[in-house]
């Protein structure tokens, strides 16, 4: 099919349009429709997997004129990295909507509308091959998430929502400046107006300019990831957002930042990206994030905030992998991004389950749930093990591969980031002990275990966690080529120098 990506991209939008005409009074109709629409969104994305050819670069490419006068076009396409992130988005988009069935009771129509709109934005980010189009989708995501936090959030929702908005907005404005600088330099060199990534890649930036553009991009992406020290919006936003909002925020939204580094910073600004100074700054910030996030977790009294800080730690691994600038680091980073989507998504869903029953997030309020909710406890245990990188679950594969890449750069990187592994076990097991083990208090004594719908939400994520852990080979295969493209772009001749077989040598190695 020629328009597969457009179909995947606009299915949620179609669902949204129909949703707007449904009567707000009929809550169940709205619920059913939103679930159906997002499930359809998941189904239509499956042909992307079956039709994907891992010996090619960008696939399912679509090009149409959009704003020809400034050289912006509707240009979509995905490579292996885009593919896994798109699938992650369609899966978690559906699951987060499914998980909201009983959690949300007021303003249902608006709620689901925002989720579907957000879905379009996120998918667009991972598909766009035109920088302006990318930016439009990037900003589209902001608005629904702002409202989701501000309307359906917890007690400090207004503060959290505005903080989220301001941080990300400042980041993206600076990123836009970077995009424009690149755009105008390209124009002056080629006398053509184009936002197309493949065109912009040919631009030859003066060293100083490349430096500034890199840091402009950096601010946009680093706030989103979030990297230390731009992370403080995240615990607030995560904690105040409704469960499904936190899930989407952690599982997908944060990946827009890491994706940005991979799709734009590295390929468009290879000279600056391999500058040892830059690499060192990025590594240090990543490692601080890993350890700092984990230490902050140890201190949280709020269950959800703990999970939020764990994201800071996990995303530190992802950025560290990216700036290892070698195949293991980058492939590990992408896999870890998916893993984080699975495991942290589960951890947020888990908080949501008990919050719905008890309406508190205080860890001290819980305890002894193992006896009361055995199935739930086992799900929690699996999620925690996946998150702390326990083999043979998924997290281990990602962490190990990232560490392998980091070690190739520096022993110190591997040493310090491995500290996070020990800490990860500490905060998660302590959380498990405080909430699940011990005697159940009276308030917790009669909680209901998972319902079939709730099990259905967790089941695909648990399966994915085992699948990636036990059989990660397909994942590595899909990522092999795009990762090699990035590595060759940043460090030309890498594969030859290290006497490795380059995955690029078989078919034509062009980005088009």
């Amino acid at each position, binding site marked *: 099919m020629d328009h597969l990506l457009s179909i995947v991209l606009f299915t949620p939008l179609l669902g949204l349009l129909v949703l707007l005409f449904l009567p707000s009074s009929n809550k169940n109709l709205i619920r059913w429709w939103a679930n159906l629409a997002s499930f359809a969104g998941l189904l239509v994305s499956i042909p992307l997997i079956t039709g994907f050819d891992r010996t090619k670069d960008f696939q399912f490419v679509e090009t149409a004129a959009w704003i020809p006068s400034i050289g912006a076009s509707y240009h979509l396409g995905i490579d292996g990295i885009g593919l896994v992130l798109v699938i992650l988005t369609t899966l978690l988009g559906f699951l987060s909507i499914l998980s909201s069935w009983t959690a949300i009771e007021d303003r249902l129509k608006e709620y689901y509308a925002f989720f579907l709109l957000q879905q379009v934005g996120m998918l667009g980010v991972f598909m766009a091959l035109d920088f302006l189009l990318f930016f439009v989708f990037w900003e589209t995501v902001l608005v629904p998430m702002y409202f989701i936090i501000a309307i359906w959030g917890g007690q400090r929702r207004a503060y959290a929502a505005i903080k989220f908005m301001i941080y990300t907005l400042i980041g993206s404005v600076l990123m836009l400046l970077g995009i424009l600088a690149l755009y105008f330099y390209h124009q002056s060199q080629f006398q053509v107006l184009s936002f197309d990534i493949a065109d912009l890649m040919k631009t030859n930036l003066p060293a100083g300019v490349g430096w500034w553009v890199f840091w402009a991009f950096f601010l946009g992406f680093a706030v989103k990831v979030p990297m230390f020290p731009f992370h403080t919006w995240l615990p607030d936003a995560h904690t105040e957002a409704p469960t499904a909002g936190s899930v989407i925020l952690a599982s997908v939204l944060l990946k827009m930042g890491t994706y940005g580094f991979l799709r734009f910073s590295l390929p468009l600004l290879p000279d600056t990206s391999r500058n040892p100074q830059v690499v060192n700054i990025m590594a240090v910030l990543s490692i601080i994030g890993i350890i700092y996030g984990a230490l902050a977790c140890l201190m949280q009294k709020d269950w959800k905030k703990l999970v939020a800080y764990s994201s800071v730690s996990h995303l530190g691994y992802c950025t560290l992998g990216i700036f290892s600038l070698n195949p293991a680091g980058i492939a590990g980073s992408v896999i870890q991004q998916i893993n984080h989507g699975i495991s942290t998504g589960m951890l947020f869903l888990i908080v949501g389950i008990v919050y719905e029953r008890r309406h508190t997030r205080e860890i001290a309020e819980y305890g002894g749930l193992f006896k009361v909710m055995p199935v739930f406890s086992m799900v929690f245990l699996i999620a925690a093990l996946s998150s702390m990188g326990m083999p043979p679950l998924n997290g281990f594969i990602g962490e190990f591969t990232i560490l392998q890449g980091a070690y190739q750069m520096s022993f110190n990187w591997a040493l310090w980031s*491995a500290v996070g592994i020990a800490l990860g076990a500490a905060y998660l097991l302590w959380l498990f002990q405080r909430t699940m083990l011990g005697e159940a208090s009276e308030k917790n004594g009669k909680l209901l275990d998972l319902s079939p719908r709730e099990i259905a939400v967790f089941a695909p994520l648990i399966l994915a966690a085992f699948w990636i852990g036990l059989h990660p080979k397909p994942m590595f295969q899909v990522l092999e080529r795009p990762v090699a493209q990035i590595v060759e772009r940043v460090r030309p001749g890498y594969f030859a120098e290290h006497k490795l077989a380059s995955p690029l040598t078989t078919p034509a190695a062009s980005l088009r």
Partner: protein
Amino acid sequence: MQHLWLIPVLPLLGFLLNGLFGRRLAKGAVTAIALGSVLLSFAWVVKTLVGLGALETAYIERYFTWFQSGDLRVGADLSVDRLTAVMLLVVTGVGSLIHIYAVGYMTHEGGYYRFFAYLNLFMFFMLVLVLGANFLLLFVGWEGVGLCSYLLIGFYFLKKSATDAGKKAFIVNRIGDFGFSLAMLLIVITFGSLDFGAVFPAAASKPESTLTLIGLLLLLGACGKSAQAPLYVWLPDAMEGPTPVSALIHAATMVTAGVYMVARSSAIYLHAHAAQEMVAYIGLGTAVFAATIGLAQNDIKKVFAYSTVSQLGYMFLGLGAGAFSAGIFHLVTHAFFKALLFLGAGSVIHALEGEQDLRHMGGLRTRIPVTFWTLACAWVAIAGIPPFAGFHSKDAILLAAHHHAPWMYWVGVLTAAMTAFYVSRAMFLAFFGEPRGHHHPHESPPVMTAPLAVLALLSLAGGFLDVPKFLEPLFPLSEGAHDFALVAISVVAGLAGIGLAALFYVVKPGLADAVANALGGLYTLVYNKYFVDELYDAAVVRPVETGSREALWKGVDAGLIDGAANGVASIARATGGLLRLIQSGNIRSYATWVVFGSILVLVAIGLVGGGAR
């Protein structure tokens, strides 16, 4: 094709069946699944080993590529050589016996199916650990057994002390895993592979400094798993778990994984002199240190726990002295007699309805005779009395130590004397003298005593299994001749330990307290385990806690970063507030500002323009 995969997968099936459906199954069915899967696995081990014959070289089965990143390929490959064969027999053999015993021991406990599901899962991971043909698969098993240990220590999850102990075990092990992970990464960088078959033959050609670093990092991992100093602190606490767990995981099998791993990596240690020396030091230090603590414990399981730490130290001493096969030999005999000691202790605890304090026991010899006589077999075995099991393996280690450095032999002999003393002390306090408790002891059922009897037999005669000879193709025997005087000295040391204990606790019962009082501070120090837990708490745990809360979370996050962000916001608001004053709505004031502004602009143009001209 021998279908090696069946060996671990059978217990895995048991775990899945009991884990998923055990809640709804009858107790008999749970028992049948749990026992059946382990016994079948044992049978399959025997069948495989018979089928493989002499096993002069490693037999490998490759199933599929587990993962491939760059040029690193890690396969799901299992392999059997003579070292694995020994481990397989110990794990499935002793494992089966303990499973049988547990049927009786756990019969009145809640969560029966859960217990056996965890136990089967443990068997699965332990078998993966010993069968894995590369470091990563070994690590999978390594982490998996750690998880099961966590779950089983905290099996009585209503008790905070139990869940604390489980957590502590896991986290301390993770510190060791940190070393193991870094070692694996260094192996990948150095050798380009994690396969045993590719790494070890190439070790001789690599620089010694790299190999030393690998060896030390692996040793850190082994110290975590095998409870060696400074990471031994989790094992005594782990006794919170049900007693069959202490026997299986925390005595016979899992804690020996570090010994197995070091022996497996002998090719690396043989070319990393400093690292191997370190193995010996850590082993010897732990052996003597833990033995002194064992002298003054009152909880019967704690005595045996410190004994395990100490005996594991012995094994490391053997490895470090270059006698890898002696270390493994002691691993085997220790599995027999220490499993027996724990199961016997369990039988005592079972008889006394949960009493674990030696001071409240006494006179049990005639009340639970089967338990006593089987335990007595373990007693003579661990005390190193010829010709019982412990004698042979301990002697092999001590002789190697003497060959390596004579002073190590003498410290080892001292440890042997202490070992004989504390085990005898426990035996005398529990089984001799007058009953000191208010219990009505009853002998355990045959399902528990039968495994005791089998293990008793193995403790008595297990020393005649010539493990070092069997392992000769892997670990050439050291040339140290059998020096009769050295053997005699260590035997005398063991007898002296027993004699001293008899004097203290049977002949003159008041003497022990008198000595304790006379030693004063030293006794308090040992009684409180040298305050190591308190030291770690004060030096590591609390600084991390307070530091993260006060400095990082409240200080940096809320204070510095958000402070800065809020500061920018306040400046913006203040500026806005000032500028708002200009917007007074008063035409005259606007006119004033316009004039003022125009003058400013003119002046500015004048200045800049003047400069340009």
